[in-house]
């Protein structure tokens, strides 16, 4: 199994732990990743809010670069994933969009490079049963609220690989590695995402709503699959408490970090220390101890 890997800007900075854990998990499973050479930003929400043509052209630049690799794209950031899929959809369905994207990038593109999210790759391509068979340190006793956010499932005709209102693939994946997914109602509620800096009040309100509900549902942590969600739920968690009321802290690790621990990778290999709401005590019994990793055994 080989993919053309599109990390996206966040995975080089605020979400370096998502990048590290994604690469580590794929390596442990034998999923080969080749970075798309010289990839550029997908434009994210600022592009589709500003310029209809740029919103398609920037993802198309990357899709064209991936063509040379000859493998489907795997993205980790939910926003990059949605922008790449949306660009494909528009190029395929509207001749005007295709003409415009080709004019701007000065290269042909037919919209046919497949794009998948890492969660889709793990669950539907690699397979939950094969992952279960590779578990070395099951996450026994860890109660997780699986948070899918918006763009992994919406709009469904373009991005969804699961039910848009009640997705279950992350729950199934984490149950397979020994964790206990909790039932909770906000799996696909928005965290405010791109409004993080411009409407911080709303983002804090939404983070508070999501995190306190996860606690109420009995979760020890919230598993995320998007770097924007992670910043809003983790880095901004102290603000959410200050502005909207206190609740017991909830770590928000990436799903790839949790899967990696169960596969026996060390906390260092998965960047667990990057979480600002520390998950150290919560996760200390899982994963391979760092000392063993340093010893190379």
């Amino acid at each position, binding site marked *: 199994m080989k993919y053309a890997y599109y990390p996206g*800007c*966040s995975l*080089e*900075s*605020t*979400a*370096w732990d998502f990048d590290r854990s994604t690469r580590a998990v794929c390596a442990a499973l034998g999923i080969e990743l080749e970075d798309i050479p*010289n*990839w*550029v*930003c997908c*434009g*994210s*929400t*600022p*592009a*589709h*809010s*500003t*310029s*209809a*043509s*740029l*919103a398609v*052209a*920037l993802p198309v*630049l990357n899709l064209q670069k991936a063509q040379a690799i000859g493998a489907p794209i795997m993205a980790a950031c939910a926003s990059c994933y949605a922008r790449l899929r949306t660009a494909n959809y528009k190029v395929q369905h*509207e001749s005007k969009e295709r003409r*415009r994207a080709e*004019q*701007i*990038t*000065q290269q042909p593109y037919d919209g046919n490079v497949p794009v998948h999210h890492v969660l889709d790759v793990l669950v539907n391509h690699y397979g939950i049963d094969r992952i279960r068979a590779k578990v070395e340190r099951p996450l026994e006793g860890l109660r997780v609220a699986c948070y899918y956010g*918006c*763009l992994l499932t*919406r*709009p*469904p005709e373009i991005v969804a690989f699961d039910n*848009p209102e009640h997705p279950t693939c992350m729950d199934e994946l984490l149950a397979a590695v020994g964790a206990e997914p909790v039932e909770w109602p906000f799996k*696909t*509620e*928005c965290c*405010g*995402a*791109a*409004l993080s*800096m*411009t*409407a*911080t*009040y*709303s983002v804090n*309100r*939404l983070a508070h709503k999501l995190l306190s509900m996860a606690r109420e549902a009995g979760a020890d942590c919230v598993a995320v699959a998007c770097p924007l969600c992670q910043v809003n739920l983790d*880095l901004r968690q102290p603000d959410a408490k200050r502005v909207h009321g206190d609740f017991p802290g909830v770590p928000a690790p990436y799903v790839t970090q949790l899967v990696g621990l169960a596969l026996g990778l060390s906390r260092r290999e998965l960047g667990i*220390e*990057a979480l*600002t709401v520390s998950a150290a005590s919560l996760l200390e019994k899982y994963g391979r101890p760092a000392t063993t990793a340093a010893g190379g055994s």
Partner: protein
Amino acid sequence: MSETLKWNNTTLVEQVERRSGTPVGACLQCHKCSTGCPIGPEMDYLSSQIMRLVQLGEEEEVLASRAIWLCASCEACTTRCPMGIDVAGVMDALRIMAVERKVAPPGARGEEFNRSFLGSVRRHGRVFELGMMTAYKLRSGDLMADVDKVPKMLAKGKLAFLPNRSGRSKQLREVFRRAEEEDKQQ
């Protein structure tokens, strides 16, 4: 009653439909979009009200609304609309029109953020967070926001001091220039 209902100002609804590629005129005010909107509590107009104002041709009201800048693009409205209207896509079209016509309301920081973000992409090929955040703070005047996060982000290795450049910057500048030309033909 065989006469087709005519909106009193067809220009706005037609423009928005053309730009967004979605039938705003079909909105029958079921309010499903507003009910599921995560940012509804902070909006001056709910998304269903925005659809109605577009139908009624209330251009100034719509383009100067705070609601279009508070939309988080979460696509819940688009996913749930029983008439198949891409409500989030309509919000995109309205933001673009508001900037073109220079009627964005004061305090609509979305535009300042978008310019800072895309400026960073244009220069480096990728977003350079520290530079982008500085540019946004200077544009918005919101200098102190999130300053308390910086030490923590630096300690966790989440902020780089130097941009990670990508690709040929000249090529990317050309991409942005050609995109602007294409947008002018809207």
